[in-house]
């Protein structure tokens, strides 16, 4: 698997192309840059707004623009775009049911050296609690491109989650259905299926390889759409399997695993589930993302072990 352009740059380039045609598009940044944003700022200065490091005001300004029919993008590091201005998102955007795209970069431990201030390990649980909020995660650049297209062809209140780093491609240009499907089986398996997305999808490919060597064929499902999850689709995806694993670089409380469990309950599915995610702890540690994942017990080795044990359990 070769790395490609950063998902955020793919997303912003797509919006930039559309913004040249559509002067109603506004891109607001809370002082977060991107290679792709440089050209946008230069060529479309009226449509690019530097909000300052003022996420609360950024959301309210976006609200006013959205009320005037503008297609608005809010761009910031994921932790600051979600928790810092949570009340503004709730009151101004969600409670008035306004469309806006919140593009959060650096989910999970993306900003590994920065510490808990910069970790977005609660962003799913926080954002999914808001009415009208859709949540998507880009597991590769193709998915990011499709999400960008969706954001202007079908504006809604939508939180789009992206890793800070490039992710290997898992889709081809022909895979145009992935957002509509929401839950995409990217690798088949037998008896056991794993739900994940983003950076942990990349890691899940390695886990799958490890388990294959142990005789366990783990199916992989990309949770493209965390909210809403189609009950019909989750029945379809889960039906061939006996055991379910959820895997995330997010707190277990309210994260991807919770999304899947709740959808299973609502869909009337009762099967054993193993949740692999971050337990209640903030790590102030050096050593990079791999070390943090190891401390949290979600690195490839730890996850493989947990899943193998779960798979072998009667």
């Amino acid at each position: 698997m070769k790395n490609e352009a950063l998902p955020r740059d793919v997303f912003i380039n797509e919006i930039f192309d559309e913004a040249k045609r559509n002067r109603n598009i506004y891109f607001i940044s809370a002082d977060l840059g991107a290679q792709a944003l440089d050209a946008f700022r230069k060529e479309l200065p009226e449509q690019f707004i530097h909000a300052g490091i003022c996420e609360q005001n950024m959301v309210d300004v976006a609200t006013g623009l959205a009320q005037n029919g503008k297609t608005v993008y809010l761009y910031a590091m994921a932790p600051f775009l979600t928790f810092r201005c949570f009340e503004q998102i709730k009151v101004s955007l969600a409670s008035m049911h306004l469309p806006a795209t919140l593009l959060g970069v650096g989910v999970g431990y993306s900003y590994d050296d920065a510490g808990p201030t910069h970790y977005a390990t609660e962003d799913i649980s926080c954002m999914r609690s808001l009415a009208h909020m859709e949540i998507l995660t880009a597991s590769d650049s193709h998915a990011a491109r499709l999400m960008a297209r969706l954001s202007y062809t079908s504006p809604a209140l939508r939180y789009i989650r992206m890793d800070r780093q490039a992710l290997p491609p898992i889709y081809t240009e022909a895979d145009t259905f992935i957002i509509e499907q929401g839950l995409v089986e990217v690798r088949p398996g037998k008896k056991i299926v794993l739900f994940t997305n983003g950076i942990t999808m990349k890691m899940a490919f390695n886990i799958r390889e490890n388990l294959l060597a142990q005789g366990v064929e783990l199916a992989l499902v990309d949770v493209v759409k965390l909210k809403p999850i189609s009950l019909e689709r989750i029945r379809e995806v889960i039906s061939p399997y006996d055991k379910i694993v959820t895997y995330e670089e997010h707190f277990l409380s309210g994260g991807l695993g919770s999304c899947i469990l709740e959808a299973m309950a609502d869909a009337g599915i009762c099967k054993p589930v193993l949740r692999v995610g971050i337990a209640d702890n903030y790590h102030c540690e050096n050593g990079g993302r791999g070390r943090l994942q190891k401390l949290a017990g979600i690195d490839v080795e730890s996850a493989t072990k947990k899943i193998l044990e779960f798979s072998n359990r009667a």
Partner: protein
Amino acid sequence: MNIELLKKKAAWLRREVFELVAVHKKGHAPSSYSCLDIITTLFYGGHMRVNPKNPKWEDRDRIFISKGHAGMAMYPVLCDLGFVPFEELKKFTKPDGVFRFYPDPSIPGVEAITGSLGHGIGIASGHALAGRHAGKNYRNYVILGDGECYEGSIWESALFAAHHKLNSLVVFVDRNRCCILGHTEDCVQLDPMEDKWRAFGWNAMTIDGHDFAQIEKALQSAYDPSNTRPTAIIANTVKGKGISFMENKPGWHNRMPNDEEIRQARAELDALQTA
């Protein structure tokens, strides 16, 4: 500007707002009264260009009662102008009523949900930017509580509006000097208020917020073609203005009057109307 008309309208509005509180036992009359003369001037002094038949008319002037607890001061006005039938006042906060405790855009003539403090200038700035880029000349008025200025988001918005020179933005700071637990300067000091706004790059001035001539003069200063900045009008006001026993008493923020107090308040407000 017809000051006599404004006085008459303000006296009528005070009486109508009081009935909402007296009858339904809900609402914030004192907070409404401190900014009521400003709202009266905007709507009846020829400032607000609105179309009750088309509340979302693109070229309308916008008003954001950022201190949402005073949003009820606008309700009788919206009826008087024809946005909402007068009968709706009788159904204030009732299940089948349009008017709610705090305003939201489901009410014709209301731009945004307020009640949670600190949102008005930011949202109005979005409207101001949209208007500028569309080549429209509508104005964006915000009624801000002085206690609301404790919210950090206000100052984020103040920076932003000044940077973008949003001169269609006119903010009234309802400086009644009261928050719920006491007087602002005893709780957390806010003075010097005008200096703060000026330091943030605003066209700032201080007036008597119950003097119609001063309100008008301040608005004309905001409209001056040479003014390239957003305007902050610090309006010194009296919380509860018009009902003697409520005036400047923080404890009346959300207290409901008893029968004797209702009788006295009605008498005082009736006297204002006939003055």
